């Protein structure tokens, strides 16, 4: 079977256009619709010399717009995280949500919300993301420690998924406990952490997630060539001059930071990182440079679309976005599991 592939540059260009279109739709529609002239006027209100924004315009500028941008960034983070994990573990069914990174990060953030106030921890913008990263490191490390085979030190994928499942359950129950004892009921709910939502978006969140997403993707791209060599095996990559241990540590760290920071502001959103690289591989092959950029773009577009669906389905109320991503992601996951060509 000869594999027909499309031009990778063209795919990436098309994906950028799609992401922009979804962004436009996602700022236009929602609990209230904004017409295009209204969007223009609201943006113009930011310029000096214009009258102060009206209530509607403030809703647009302080709620709708940051949410749409955050959604793009979080989607990009999850897509990149999925591409990196799959490249690292040489398996197409690994994903940040499945191997525990996301739930650990959610646990770290929940712990910060509950204990942060009591213990009077720092109020810096970076405290919450830092707590999420620590949680993400903890759970990811736990999964890989437990899933490691005693004979050759490599994690088999079945063990990895089962361990991920157990660690996820552990951290989710810890989050349940934290939200149960939390004094501040309006702060966070269990639904927020377990199903994910972007309703808490703010410009501050956008700034923090933008830094981690862009920096993480840039670092990942530097190592794309080495990740490519890893596709033919760890031993073979070593023979091609790749320091495999060093590469593993760098990619795992980038992945934990990128995913944990996104999770800190949105809760656990599963399956985006699983589906996205897979679609791209079918279109344009397995080259990691293309996969990392493409996964960021596709993740951004897909999550924005999911958020739009989450906001429009029960308008003016909204669904947790994790419900939408799981509805799409679970069938893809099951299909992947049934395919024979992947070795478990």
């Amino acid at each position, binding site marked *: *079977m000869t594999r027909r592939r499309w031009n990778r540059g063209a795919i990436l260009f098309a994906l950028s256009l799609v992401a922009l279109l979804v962004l436009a739709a996602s700022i236009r529609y929602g609990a209230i619709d904004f017409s295009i002239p209204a969007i223009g006027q609201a943006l113009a209100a930011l310029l000096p010399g214009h009258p102060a924004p009206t209530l509607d315009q403030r809703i647009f500028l302080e709620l709708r717009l940051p949410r749409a941008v955050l959604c793009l960034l979080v989607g990009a983070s999850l897509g990149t995280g999925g591409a990196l994990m799959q490249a690292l573990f040489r398996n197409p069914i690994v994903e940040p949500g499945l191997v525990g990174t996301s739930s650990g990060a959610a646990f770290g953030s929940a712990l910060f919300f509950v204990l942060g106030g009591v213990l009077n921890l720092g109020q810096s913008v970076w405290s919450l993301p830092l707590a999420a990263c620590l949680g993400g490191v903890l759970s990811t490390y736990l999964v890989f420690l437990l899933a490691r085979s005693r004979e050759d030190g490599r994690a088999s994928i079945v063990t990895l998924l089962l361990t991920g499942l157990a660690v996820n359950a552990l951290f989710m129950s810890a989050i349940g406990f934290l939200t149960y004892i939390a004094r501040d009921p309006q702060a966070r709910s269990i639904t927020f952490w377990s199903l994910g939502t972007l309703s808490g978006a703010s410009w501050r969140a956008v700034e923090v997630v933008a830094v981690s997403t862009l920096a993480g993707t840039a670092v990942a791209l530097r190592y794309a*060539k080495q990740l490519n060599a890893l596709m033919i095996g760890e031993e073979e990559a070593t023979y091609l001059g790749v320091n495999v241990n060093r590469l593993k540590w760098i990619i795992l760290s980038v992945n934990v930071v990128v995913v944990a920071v996104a999770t800190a502001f949105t809760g656990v959103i599963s399956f985006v990182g699983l589906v996205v690289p897979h679609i791209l591989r079918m279109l344009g*092959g397995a080259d990691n440079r293309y996969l990392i950029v493409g996964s960021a773009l596709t993740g951004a577009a897909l999550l924005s679309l999911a958020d739009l669906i989450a906001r429009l389905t029960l308008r003016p109320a909204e669904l947790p976005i994790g419900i939408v991503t799981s509805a799409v992601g679970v069938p893809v996951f099951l299909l992947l599991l049934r395919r024979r060509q992947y070795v478990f």
Partner: protein
Amino acid sequence: MLEARDISFKVGDKTLLSGVSVKFEPGRLHLVIGPNGAGKSTLIKMLARLLRPHEGQVLYEGADVQRASEIDLARRRAVLSQAVEVAFPLTVREVVMMGRHPHFGSRPGAADEKIVDELMEFFDVTEFDGRDYQTLSGGERQRVNFARVLAQLWRPGPACRYLFLDEPLTFLDIRHQIEFMKKVRAFADASDVVTVGVVHDLNLAARFADQIVLLNDGRVTAAGAPAEVLTRERIREVFGVEPTFVPAGQSGLHLIFD
């Protein structure tokens, strides 16, 4: 010139290699034989610097291989393994191009493409160019990987180059084994590369090798030309089988075991 100088290797308290000293010359085909557990693969991995000896040194042109940088080593040393599984759908051409990784920066250049073309032609895999590697048979895959490994060494520079074959015949049928060994032989004759391989079949070893290294229980029992090394007494003692020598024309020894 490649030299192992008094190397030893242990896993836990089990000694896999002890005091192995052996030299390998450029342009010749060296095959390592021995019963299971003799330390053949361990020796190859140590010569290729995947493993580090606990004692002794591996010398490339007289210099300790541990001091070489990863990228410098990757440009002059390549290893063909038993069976390479790729994790994702890669085309055959992409797999061969992997061999050029240590040579190009971010993307392959025209020279890399040309080398890949030539090697795919040499190994008769040009027709598979755009095909998914995962759909190939074992014999086809091994040819593709041989092309990849030679693409890695394809640099007619002054530095001495080293090719290691770590049980490359394991998953091949008899026809593919012989075809594969003929390619190895042709390559060894046409180049000044130091070639060291591990094989199990004594007849293939006797027919194709310039030098045979017989390992037993982590030690070198004998090293030299096939006819010198493969004597009735040694085969009986090391492998525990009784050989019958059959005259086999110009292709050297032919052995039947009992």
